[in-house]
């Protein structure tokens, strides 16, 4: 049986029980409980190698599993960042002692966040200033992080710090594994424009961590952070396919509604434009997948992120246009959330401007602009 089919069976068995217990609650505790269920079937991190506690699935199977989860509307696990980002980084760079985190990540005993961006270091992440100064066998950390996903509920943080201010900026960065219950750490929720607080600000005041909490060598923090590429690839392809499903759902919903009143011509054309874009995006995803399976490099992955982010915004606008007055009067929360929330898609995880620079420089070979100073 193919992994995705196995997962389907497992989900069809677990989801009804879960929904009986939690209803439509998708808050942190609900997602932690869901992760415990997945863990009982070893489905938390199917893409991890078997020796790390996963199933060793390749990109195609990972995408197929993601799509099954999406189709059955399974909750996102509480420890998603640990599974997709931090865990693989620890697996690649961690000492034998640090690898002990992996099983705790799977079990949701540890919930990890990533402390990267700072108020003065967004697109220019390498300009980060949170400082870690060596004092005997400890580092003393002072600084601030912003836009930390799950920062309020996390138990641990993969923290990027500056350990050497006297070398070129990329070379003076280190990665530290930091428990968030240490003295000197303060957390505040960051409220985004949609109203929710999915992110946090983290403040560090003379926080002491053992030097043995370094992940990878001192000064190699930048390289350590670039590790999670293959997981990203699967993720990018999945979101491309999910957007296609989103558009098809919108078409079905619109068709139902317009049985009585026909759709205005320009809105019909706009809706079909989204359909065309979504189908094309999913096809680029297929190309990316076959390239990944053949071990071939390709521009498709970066292209998908860029196209996806733009289409998300356009889709949000189309949903609003189709929903009319009701959308701005609380009757269409999905349309409102799509429109407002999608402002972030062209900013988070690499702004459109940076993505285009990367495509132009790394794929097309155009010259880099010199940095000032």
């Amino acid at each position, binding site marked *: 049986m193919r992994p995705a089919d196995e997962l389907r069976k497992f989900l069809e068995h677990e989801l009804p029980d879960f929904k009986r217990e939690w209803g439509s609650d998708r808050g942190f505790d609900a997602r932690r409980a869901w992760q415990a269920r997945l863990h009982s079937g070893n489905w938390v991190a199917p893409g991890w190698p078997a020796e790390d506690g996963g199933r060793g699935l390749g990109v195609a199977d990972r995408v197929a599993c993601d799509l099954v989860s999406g189709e059955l509307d399974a909750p996102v696990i509480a420890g998603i960042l640990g599974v997709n980002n931090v865990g693989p980084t620890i697996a690649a760079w961690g000492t034998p002692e640090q690898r002990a985190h992996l099983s705790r990540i799977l079990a949701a005993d540890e919930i990890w966040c990533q402390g990267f961006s700072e108020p003065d270091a967004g697109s220019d992440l390498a300009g980060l200033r949170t400082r870690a100064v060596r004092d005997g066998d400890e580092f003393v950390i002072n600084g601030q992080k912003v836009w930390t996903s799950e920062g309020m509920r996390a138990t641990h943080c993969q923290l990027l710090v500056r350990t050497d201010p006297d070398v070129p900026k990329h070379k003076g960065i280190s990665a530290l594994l930091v428990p968030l219950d240490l003295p000197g750490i303060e957390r505040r929720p960051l409220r985004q424009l949609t109203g929710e607080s999915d992110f946090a600000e983290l403040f560090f005041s003379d926080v002491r961590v053992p030097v043995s909490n370094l992940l990878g060598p001192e000064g190699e923090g930048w390289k350590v952070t670039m590790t999670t590429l293959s997981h990203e690839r699967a993720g990018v392809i999945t979101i491309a396919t999910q957007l296609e499903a989103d558009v098809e759902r919108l*078409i079905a919903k*619109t*068709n139902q509604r*317009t049985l009585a009143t026909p*759709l205005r011509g320009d809105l*019909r*054309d706009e*809706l*079909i*434009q989204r*359909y*065309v*874009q979504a*189908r*094309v*995006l999913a*096809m*680029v995803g*297929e*190309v990316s997948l076959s390239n990944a399976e053949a071990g071939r490099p390709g*521009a*498709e992955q970066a*292209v998908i992120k*860029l*196209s996806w982010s733009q289409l998300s915004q356009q889709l949000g606008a189309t949903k609003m246009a189709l929903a009319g007055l009701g959308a701005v009067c609380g009757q269409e929360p999905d349309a409102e959330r799509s429109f407002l929330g999608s402002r972030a898609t062209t900013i988070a995880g690499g702004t459109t*401007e940076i*993505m*285009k*620079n990367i*495509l*132009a*420089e790394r*794929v*097309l*070979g*155009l*010259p*880099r*602009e010199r940095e000032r100073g």
Partner: protein
Amino acid sequence: MNAVSEADRAALRESVASLLNRRSSEAEVRRLMETEHGYDTATWRQMADQLGLQGLIIPDSYGGSGFTFAELGVVFEEMGKALYCGPFLATVLASAALLECEETLRKEHLPRIAAGELIATVAVEPWLAGGGFSPTVSAAYSGSGWQLDGQADFVLSGLHAELIVVLAGVEGKPALFAVSGDSANLARTPLDTTDRTRKQARLDFTAVPAALIAEGTRATEIAQRICVIGAVALAAEQAGGIAEVLRMAVSYAQTREQFGRAIGSFQAVKHTCADMLVLATSAAAVARKAAAAVSADFGDLRVLAGVAKSYCSEAFIEAAADNIQVHGGIGFTWEHPAHLYLRRAMTSNVMFGDAGHHRELLAGQLGV
């Protein structure tokens, strides 16, 4: 059908690119643009003799190579890159129609097409705009056979095609006929096209003898299939064209200097090129998917053809315009090839249904 690997397709692409590199240079394109027939017979013959291009999807039993449209799509992409001037699209469309007809017709024409000895085209304009069938050519049967009267406009390679598949009305109902290009009473007038690399003609029929090749629902099916294949072939050409204008723009951005550095080092120019890369990557993905669907006969071929044609048509115009923008003043000259691609993009957009037309069809297919 022959099973073709990705490696085989890559080899085919290389061979076609190599031939076009030698036989369809910019100088050659410009030379052919100014001629009435717009193609080179020696090149046409080489395409058949060396690579069997005209017979690529014609079965072996008729002298072709028996490959699929996925391979033909590769050929169209390369032709789109090189702005190949010749009746290839026209002939492929006619073969596609003939492949749906009965055996005697196939045996009569397909081997000569595969050998590069017969140039053919289709006149199915009444179907191109969609909607109802309102024929501009009517057919009537007299004692000596069928005769066609009326006018067919925008016929690809219509001036010199030796065989023309014509969609006409028989008492208002669709029927397909085969007409010989050198018939008496068939007046052929070349059109003054925006894209001179692609010749079109108007055909005026006055009691022109014709052979009936399909009627009623069968004729409708074949005409619609021609339109779907036309859309998919053009999407492939457009994808190739986008790849080429991207290459041109990047090359220029790397070499042209202003303010003491390559203009490609400025973010605004970089971003335009990045946008073009997105168009090129996306167009290639959808054009190839649609091409694969033609021979595999996927359930949603008509939807895929519409998605491909609508996307690629608009993407090619945008990319061709961006290419001119990156080139600045020199991009606005006659001597620079950028406008040749823009003209090709403008024309390909409206042939076999422009983007809006295909979205309209898609809306109907999706119940919107």
